[in-house]
């Protein structure tokens, strides 16, 4: 947040300076500018539990404001900032208690030339081509504790330097993207009750990382080959898992969260063939201790390979169907239940923690098959949209999430969305364990 404050000040100063020199036209579309644009959105979300002990009660009532400032000069310098404030009379984190959340979602300075694009500051860097599940999305994190029908709203960024280089003055199909992140953002998870061993002190959130600390900095490189009808990329990452896993400290009797170090190599591709779009994305993710065969390390996530392959096509002009197969394979899988300790109580606790990690991070089996399905309707001349999304996993038991939603735009700028997040399947699996978190939702959003 300190870094965010520094960047905010410098960006506001830069915005003022840049605006006075803003050009009205240019041959470069990215240098096109309007006079000090001031954009944003106001939205309210309401989630109502559908089942469990809290059925009929609100899971979340929230009111949010985004303000966005953007400016560029005709010399390629720019500044971009998005601030967010949420008022939460009721939320999964603080049920029926008022809470506030405010953050600089993004705030960076940029410089663009024909062959380069440099951005420095708080930013969200999503990588990956597939829909909903992105094995190569190394840099961003998500806040699953604040509900929103738009998954992108849940993204969390971090202070970073992001440099894109395209040879031949920007005309080459080859490009290189270098990313340095001053510290890793942390995903905030919705923890199912079943994942928390009873009778022990439990700290859900890991300690925040320190900026520019060797234990927090992240680096990545993506080499992409982009043509208008196909593209592919190869990516490398050194950093940390943004999803926390839990360890037990016997001295304090405390279960606490950590973000293990992570190395990864991956890639993605997409291409069009007639009316079909094909996408693929895969990554080999190597967390700290992920290849160790000691049963102690069966309590944390092992090395694994995540892959997504999908096909999408339109029907008529307004409908679209998409199908993806997911596959995750753990190379050095050790069941948490194989851990044993001379102290039976310790064995029980450690196995409980390990099984909790396996449940949250979805490594209950050595290999897991999954699928996603999306059916969507959108017509630019109609004010209605509809979307049905399903994700399911098949391992030692099945579980799923179904998310139907309908949108309506009564007037330009205002959109109403209603739908449901319906979790189901075995309660011993990641999505099934969230069954009691199933909810109907309603969102009203004004974009200006």
């Amino acid at each position: 947040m300190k870094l965010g404050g520094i960047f905010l000040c410098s960006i506001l100063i830069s915005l003022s300076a840049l605006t006075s020199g803003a050009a009205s036209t240019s041959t470069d579309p990215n240098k096109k500018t309007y006079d000090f644009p001031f954009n944003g959105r106001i939205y309210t979300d309401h989630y109502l539990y559908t089942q469990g002990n809290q059925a009929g009660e609100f899971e979340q009532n929230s009111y949010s404001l985004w303000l966005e400032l953007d400016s560029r000069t005709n010399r390629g310098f720019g500044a971009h900032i998005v601030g967010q404030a949420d008022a939460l009379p009721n939320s999964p984190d603080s049920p029926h208690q008022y809470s506030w959340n405010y953050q600089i979602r993004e705030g960076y300075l940029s410089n663009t030339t024909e062959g380069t694009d440099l951005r420095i500051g708080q930013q969200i860097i999503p990588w990956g081509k597939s829909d909903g599940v992105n094995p190569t999305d190394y840099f961003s994190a998500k806040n699953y504790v604040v509900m929103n029908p738009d998954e992108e709203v849940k993204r969390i960024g971090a202070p970073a330097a992001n440099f894109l280089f395209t040879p031949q003055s920007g005309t080459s199909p080859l490009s290189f993207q270098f990313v340095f992140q001053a510290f890793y953002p942390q995903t905030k998870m919705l923890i199912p009750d079943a994942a928390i061993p009873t009778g022990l002190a439990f700290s859900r959130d890991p300690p925040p990382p320190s900026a520019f600390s060797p234990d927090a900095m992240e680096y990545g490189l993506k080499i992409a080959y982009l043509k208008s009808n196909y593209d592919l990329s190869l990516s490398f990452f050194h950093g940390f898992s943004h999803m926390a896993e839990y360890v037990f400290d016997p001295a304090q009797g405390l279960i606490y969260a950590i973000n293990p170090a992570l190395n990864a190599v991956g890639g993605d591709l997409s291409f069009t063939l007639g009316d079909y779009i094909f996408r693929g994305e895969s990554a080999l993710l190597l967390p700290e201790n992920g290849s160790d065969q000691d049963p102690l390390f069966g309590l944390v996530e092992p090395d694994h390979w995540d892959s997504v392959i999908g096909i999408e096509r339109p029907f008529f002009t307004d409908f679209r169907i998409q199908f993806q197969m997911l596959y995750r394979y753990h190379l050095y899988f050790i069941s948490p239940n194989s851990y044993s300790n001379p102290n039976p109580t310790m064995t029980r606790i450690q196995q409980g923690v390990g099984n909790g990690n396996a449940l949250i991070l979805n490594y209950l089996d050595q290999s897991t098959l999954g699928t996603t399905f999306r059916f969507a309707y959108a017509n630019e001349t109609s004010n209605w949209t509809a979307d049905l999304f399903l994700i399911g996993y098949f391992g030692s038991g099945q579980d799923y999430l179904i998310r139907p939603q309908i949108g309506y735009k009564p007037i330009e700028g205002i959109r109403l969305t209603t739908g449901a997040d319906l979790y189901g399947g075995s309660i011993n699996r990641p999505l099934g364990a969230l069954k009691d978190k199933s909810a109907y939702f309603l969102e009203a959003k004004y974009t200006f």
Partner: protein
Amino acid sequence: MNKFKDGYKLSFLTTLIFVMATTTASAASLSAKEIMTRNEDVRKVNDFETHAVLTTGTMTAQGKPGPASKTKEFTLWRKIQADTIHNSTLTRFHEPAEVRNEGILIVENNSGKNDVLLYLPNFKKIRRVESQQQSGSFMGSVFSYSDIATAHVEDYQYKTLREEKCPTAEAAAQTCSVIECIPSNDEVRERTHYSKSIIWVRNDIFMGVKAEYYDLDGKLYKTLEANQIKIVDAKNKKWLAHSLQIQNSKQEYTTLLFTNVVANKGISDSIFTQQNLQKVK
């Protein structure tokens, strides 16, 4: 990723946008294909940039455009590719707020199937638009993505139907050749979803002033009128229609107005790349 609003049809818009004033030969002595070759030639500006306003509404009972229900503003950049035939087009939207900074890159190619890429800034991702979707609405307007792209001589087979007085008020004093255009292959038919089109081409400057588009069942589907036809490159005699109004059989209309047109600026090829498409935000 639930923003499934791809539907780009644009092949025809541009056809009527430019016209050439090569008047050394009489249109009456030219074949239909020769007239359309002249038509493509007068539209062939090396590159240009323009501000555009897209206004959509419903026609009144009196057959006039009613109040606009949707207005979108964007900047359009277009440049002829190295083959000197096909174009690359980039649009970047400014208004309304919901689509601000969205970008659309259209790269025409030899196969008759254009590559259309849509950049969604909220997702910071690029979506591909399949050929079938390219006959869908361009940003909620009556224009399709294929309408907005450029029509090329080799994409159609032509027949001169007749010569008559030009049907638009602006060109009422001129004579037009009425040309029937039939897609020369299934790719063009699939991309446009038109079985044929009929174009009124001014005999003096070879610029199209009106077009009728027929759906795959052969029924009249859309009618386009081009006005404010102005020369944008006097040296090379290149023309552009600054006002286009299209109307469909559902009595919906869209007007596309170009302002601040600047031709031959020397727009870089790097503008028309995926990397550039996603540089905003």
